[in-house]
């Protein structure tokens, strides 16, 4: 079974700082990759996703992620964070073939941005 590791459990930044959240997965086959955001008290919403093509994926609110197949990684980045980016961030992976459509989530990273 695939697994997802998010290395940073808690991140605290000041506004305008750059952000990079790490995500590594264990499955060796073709995968679909996702980053979700959960604002305080809300449900999970999709930030961006990678299925195929350009490994640099741009999402909403200025976020982007880079898929590096050789490193089994899908790190999330934002050049300049805002106070409103305070949230929980989840990386998820799903097998792209083989009949499994179950996304596996990492444990999440709590981001706090100070104004």
């Amino acid at each position, binding site marked *: 079974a695939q697994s997802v590791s998010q290395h940073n459990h808690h991140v605290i930044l000041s506004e305008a700082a750059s952000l990079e959240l790490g995500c590594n997965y264990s499955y060796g086959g073709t995968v679909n990759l*996702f980053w979700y955001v959960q604002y305080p008290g809300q*449900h*999970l919403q999709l930030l961006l996703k990678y299925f195929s093509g350009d490994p640099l994926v741009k999402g909403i609110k200025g976020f982007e992620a880079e898929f590096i197949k050789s490193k089994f990684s899908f790190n999330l980045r934002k050049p300049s964070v805002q106070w409103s980016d305070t949230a929980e961030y989840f990386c998820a992976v799903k097998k792209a073939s083989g009949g499994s*459509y*179950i*996304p596996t*989530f990492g444990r*999440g990273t709590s981001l706090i941005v100070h104004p």
Partner: protein
Amino acid sequence: DAGITQSPRYKITETGRQVTLMCHQTWSHSYMFWYRQDLGHGLRLIYYSAAADITDKGEVPDGYVVSRSKTENFPLTLESATRSQTSVYFCASSGGPTDPFSDSEAFFGQGTRLTVV
């Protein structure tokens, strides 16, 4: 309205009582999921369903029962609630191999905050 809805949003129940959390989606997605979210554990899969009348266990199924008689509904029942089942429960749905958009992300409901006292 299109989407995925959960009810109730908040529930307080006593230990030993049976509780059912409802989930309804309007996309006709094949796959539906129940996750629980707990501090330090992230999202853990309880049960999932690949289609009507097809369900399977996830990572933490003990103490829970699911059914899926219709594609759009996927209720989760706690047969005899325990304090360890105090959590936030999220239902989600996504496309499967027979859906028009099989390569899709999972869409989440607003969650149900369950407290067992």
